[in-house]
């Protein structure tokens, strides 16, 4: 027996009507996508129960039994390292009466035992036993088939572990597509990979999840204005005028993922106000150029930001990595980590941990101003007439370039809204498709990314 949400929703909003929410070619979109409760329910099904979502970094669970708990959409999941070194993920809910089986954020376990009736699950999800098991035995109960519910697929790229709740989702490599070429510039600089240092900082922002995701997918524009105070505090001057040098900067996107960046090597890193980190990246850059290529070596800590569709974002150089977990149309839970090169000296790792927290945590001098913007870009739409006013999303409408040889859809100039438009196009494609098979294939991978 399986009762699917879709069976009880006669009102999914399908493609012809959905398309009235976006006129991306003309740079217009509706605010209803931030407000509408029905669209949010549909997002839980068609975005969050379908896409590959970041769930853990390899370094968080090095040993068998190491686990973390996190969210996929609003589904709480346990991600746990197996004895054979593989990783499994399960819904954090007992199949008997539904209670949470793991209440810790992280740890090491030989089993997960439910507090309610003592059902005990091995780290591979199998039901091992329970309190008063004789009572079950006498009724012919078969423990097989009563394990923790597994995620449909789990895979990783450069130490980043992703999972999907949809058995029909395309492979992770295909889902990330051309973004893998760029991810290597940050998560595989020297062939040694990255690790997360310190724990997770969590906070709540009363905003729609897409406002956070679209900010990191391509909003270089806000940096110079929103973060003027933070930049002056950290380095004594404002953010540079990023729009004045479009020849040295780009937006690229693929399958709704997007990265805006320039070629200044250390621009983001410099905002941490720590010369040792800048020196570290400058020293590393020629090696990265030799290993990957000159172009990507100039991205390793440059002024840039990235979102992997739908809700995972990071900042190269500032080394903050985060997920925006939806909690209804008007709230998110933000999970924040610091990532560093595994091969970096301990002192450098510690400087990055402190620097990223000082700038990009809820008390950080940059992040403080973001939350305020996203909350009020969400909450103004409580106004009945306000929510029916379209928004502008048309910056950089004619910036697509075809002759760079770079993978993905490339746009000249990082001060642009091309990636935001691609993000919302992907959102529209997924929201209007009843299955993965129906999702339009807009982006063709370049050979260079393989």
């Amino acid at each position, binding site marked *: 027996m399986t009762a699917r949400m879709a069976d009880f929703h006669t009102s999914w909003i399908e493609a012809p009507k959905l398309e009235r929410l976006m006129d991306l070619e003309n740079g217009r979109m509706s605010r209803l996508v931030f407000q509408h409760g029905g669209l949010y329910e549909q997002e839980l099904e068609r975005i969050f129960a379908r896409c590959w979502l970041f769930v853990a970094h390899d370094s968080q669970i090095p040993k068998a039994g190491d686990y973390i708990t996190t969210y996929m959409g609003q589904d709480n999941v346990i991600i746990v390292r197996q004895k054979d070194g593989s990783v499994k993920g399960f819904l954090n809910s007992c199949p008997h009466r539904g209670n949470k089986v793991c*209440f*810790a*954020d*992280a*740890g*090491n376990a030989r089993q997960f035992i439910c507090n309610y009736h003592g059902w005990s699950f091995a780290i591979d999800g199998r039901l091992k036993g329970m309190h008063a098991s004789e009572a079950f035995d006498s009724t012919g109960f078969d423990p097989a088939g009563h394990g923790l519910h597994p995620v449909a697929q789990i895979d990783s790229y450069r130490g980043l572990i992703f999972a999907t709740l949809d058995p029909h989702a395309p492979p992770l490599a295909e889902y990330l597509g051309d973004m893998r070429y760029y991810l290597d510039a940050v998560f595989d600089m020297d062939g040694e990979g990255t690790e997360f*240092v*310190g*724990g*997770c*900082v*969590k*906070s*709540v*922002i*009363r*905003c729609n999840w897409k406002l956070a995701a679209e900010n990191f997918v391509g909003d270089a524009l806000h940096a110079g204005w*929103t973060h*003027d*105070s*933070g930049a*002056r*505090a*950290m380095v004594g001057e404002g953010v540079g005028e990023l729009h004045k040098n479009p020849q040295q900067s780009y937006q690229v996107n693929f399958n709704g993922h997007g990265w805006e960046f320039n070629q200044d090597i250390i621009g983001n890193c410099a905002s941490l*106000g720590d010369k040792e980190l800048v020196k570290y990246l400058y020293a590393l850059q020629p090696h990265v150029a030799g290993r990957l290529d000159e172009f990507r070596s100039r991205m390793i800590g440059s002024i840039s930001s990235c979102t992997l569709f739908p809700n995972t974002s990071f900042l190269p150089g500032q080394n903050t990595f985060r997920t925006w977990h939806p909690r209804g149309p008007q709230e998110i*839970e933000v999970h*924040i*980590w*610091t990532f560093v090169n595994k091969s970096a000296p301990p002192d450098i790792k*510690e400087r990055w*941990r*402190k620097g990223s*927290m*000082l700038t990009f*945590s*809820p*008390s950080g*001098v940059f*992040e*403080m*101003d973001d*939350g*305020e*913007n*996203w*909350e009020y870009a969400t909450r103004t739409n409580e106004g009945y007439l306000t929510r029916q006013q379209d928004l502008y999303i048309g910056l950089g409408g004619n910036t697509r370039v075809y002759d760079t040889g770079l993978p993905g859809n490339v746009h000249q100039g990082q001060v642009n809204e091309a990636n935001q438009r691609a993000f919302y196009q992907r959102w529209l494609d997924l929201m209007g498709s009843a299955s993965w098979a129906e999702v339009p294939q807009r982006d063709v991978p370049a050979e260079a990314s393989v």
Partner: protein
Amino acid sequence: MNASCAAADSAVDITLHHRITQFLYREARLLDGECWDDWLALMADDIHYWMPMPENRRRADSMKAYEAGRGALFDDGLLDLSRRVARFKQPSAWAEDPPTRHVHVVSGVEAFHAAAGEYIVHSTFVNYRSRGERDNDSLVGRRQDLLRVHANDFQLARRTIYITQSVLLAKNLNTFL
């Protein structure tokens, strides 16, 4: 939370206790009034100002809720604190204009002798902030300070702040605690 405590027989006398309490109340009033530079002047040059984010860990785990070297909302020296103050003072600190209204309530003060001229001081706090029309956030916690005698007054040489929320139920933390 940190239950460790200096022995009761090293408690300071009532006069000193009064002076220490007045120092903490004054500090709270400076923060409520956004007197950032005056507040910063209370910090010793070697200040370590630390507020770890607690994690939910099982009792049997060797890793506890509050651990050094992990995620923290503050893990600051004097330069870090002065950078935070510099942001609050920028005319372009948009999220501070109109200003947030703060009250820092300090209570449960206990003070003990430490090394010569230094005191370990425990206290509890409530920070209540209101912003705009209906933004109201509160944060409750316990602090352990190291106060040092300085020019007929005190300076703060170390502060550890233990908050209760493992998910900060607010978009930011735009004050000191």
